[in-house]
């Protein structure tokens, strides 16, 4: 359950709109059901009062929307940022992807977001209402006589179970209490994969990636994927592809994408959230993050604006490429 209420956010947004500080508000809009929240731009207080929501299904990260939005407008936009979103925000600024002057960032605390597929796995299909109560999510369905109460930790999205930080690394204004960078188990699964034999590991990724339908949702939602023209869409790149051809194409797509965002991925987890086939894509990225930490020292992309990522920087303490090679050999 979120500690900050919708009303507090609306009040903040309304005052900034009324004062003329911002001309629009990027926020979450109520959908058909309790959980299908759509990112939207609100431009009036009435719209906010009618449709703005804040709750346990507001997972969408708005940072990437700022790239397109700040190009279209001369005025400022208010964006609500959860702690993890602020890392993407900073990383995009580091890469000069949007105009900071046109953004009014309000940091908001986040208690972790629920994953509707987990909710459905427990409460069943046919959800007609979800209420956030002290005890947890009270889920009403077509097939249960009484609401099923799901403890928050049981409904928590995987990326939130392994939340890396409750601390905001960027904002103009903060609502609520600031949190801390957390110790998380986010590399546990990567370690488990590393412990596998190469054949087992290949089988794991083969099984997962063969589910890919090449819808590009992971790429299109990814705040690190902001190329003007993706190599996979560019007919003259020689790498333009559109569908899983044979058995390798989708693997190439994901592996190249993971390489391309290496050192820039903040581990926001949007890729896995949007995957229609529930492929744990974030594990590819976490593997890179873990390796970077191991070889070059702890580094969190987006922790600060302008930081030189290890992969685009050089220090005399850097690991020798040969060592990396040997380490690879050991795992082979």
């Amino acid at each position, binding site marked *: 359950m979120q500690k900050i209420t919708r009303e507090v956010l609306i009040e903040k947004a309304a005052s900034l709109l009324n004062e003329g500080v911002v001309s629009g508000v990027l926020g979450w809009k109520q959908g058909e059901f309790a959980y299908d929240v759509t*990112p939207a731009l609100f431009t009036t207080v009435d719209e906010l009062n009618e449709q703005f929501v804040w709750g346990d299904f507001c997972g969408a990260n708005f940072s990437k929307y700022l790239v397109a939005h700040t190009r279209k407008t001369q005025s400022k936009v208010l964006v609500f940022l959860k702690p993890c979103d602020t890392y993407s925000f900073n990383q995009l600024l580091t890469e000069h992807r949007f105009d900071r002057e046109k953004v009014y960032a309000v940091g908001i605390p986040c208690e972790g977001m629920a994953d509707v597929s987990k909710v459905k796995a427990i409460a069943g*299909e046919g959800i007609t209402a979800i209420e956030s109560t002290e005890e947890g999510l009270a889920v009403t369905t077509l097939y249960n006589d009484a609401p099923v109460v799901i403890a928050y930790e049981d409904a928590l999205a995987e990326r939130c179970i392994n939340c890396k930080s409750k601390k905001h690394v960027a904002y103009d204004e903060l609502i609520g209490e600031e949190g801390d960078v957390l110790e998380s188990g986010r590399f546990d699964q990567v370690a488990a994969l590393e412990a596998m034999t190469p054949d087992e590991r290949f089988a794991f990724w083969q099984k997962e990636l063969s589910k890919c339908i090449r819808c590009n949702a992971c790429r299109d*939602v990814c705040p690190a994927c902001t190329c003007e023209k993706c190599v996979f869409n560019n007919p003259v790149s020689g790498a333009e592809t559109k569908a899983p051809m044979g058995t390798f194409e989708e693997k190439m797509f994901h592996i190249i994408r993971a390489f391309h965002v290496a050192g820039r991925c903040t581990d926001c987890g949007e890729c896995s959230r*949007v995957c229609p086939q529930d492929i744990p894509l974030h594990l590819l990225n976490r593997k890179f993050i873990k390796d970077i930490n191991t070889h070059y020292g702890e580094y969190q992309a987006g922790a600060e604006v302008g930081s030189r990522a290890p992969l685009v920087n050089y220090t005399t303490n850097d690991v020798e490429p040969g060592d990396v090679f040997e380490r690879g050999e050991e795992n082979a």
Partner: protein
Amino acid sequence: MCLKGVKRMRKCALANLDKLFAAIAENADLYLPVNDENGAASYKKWEEGTEMSDALNTVKSPKDFFFPQSEDLMTFKTEGKNIEITDIREESKDFVVFGVRACDVRSFDILDRVFITDPQDSYYASKREKGVIVSMACTRPTETCFCAAFGIDAAAPKGDVTTWKTEADLYLQANTEKGEKLLAALEALTEEADCAAVEAQQAKTRAIMEKLPLAGLDTEQFGGGKTKEYFDAPEWKELSQSCLGCGTCTFVCPTCQCYDIKDFNTGRGVIRYRCWDSCMYSEFTRMAHGNNRNSQLERFRQRFMHKLVYYPENNDGIFGCVGCGRCLAKCPISMNIVKVMKTLGGKKDE
């Protein structure tokens, strides 16, 4: 529909379902929905021990069976200035797709009207000819379901054979010659049955259908001839503003049928294949010298106008949507045809 005397109802005890599947698989490849370890269903080829999923529906629609995501069309060999074209079309094998829901069964009609109209697409047509559709009535529709809006009865799906799964039995009824043939081959494993159990199940399902959150969804306001009414609607801006331009809705959709044709050079020759494409993609209509749909608003509008206006205009008023709800469940930003219909349709009440 269970019609006593008109169509014969057969039944098979659920305990014998594996035998039934084995018997079908003797003469044809049998595909049915199977759960993965996360409970997500997809069509898999049946083999001894395969357990049919109880999931309401598969993540990907069964359109893959007739219109695969990628499909080789022909090959070329080039030598010097010469080209040799090889027609690689093969006789399709007989196959049975089991457990198709009412919404997806309708999607085949919608695809047929595209692919089997003159000039016929022989790749699709040959698979359609060989495939037998065994549908299964829904018993637990979910909140994203809205097939009824398109006149589909989830309790009485069409297809070559319709089945109903009750507590104890699988009821089967043939609707077509293909279906009769399939059931005739299963005669020994099934027995004559009356319709009571099926009718009871249907009544229960239909009662749930009426209580679904999207039960009252109105299609009246859409259809052929409404291009002018909706094309320039200001609502498109708001509806499309957060669209990522990905292809999720298109690729999980049972009726989206746009495709691309591409060449792949293997080094020993060229394979010309086709693959699903999406009107949501920025490259979809790009030509060497321009693009007639430059903004995501235009691309987004195209997808929904096609389903709600253009398709019905060309196809006797039949909508290009079956209400399966996949796009509702899978869109990364939770934007979908229902929101489009409510927003565009709703403005007329004002």
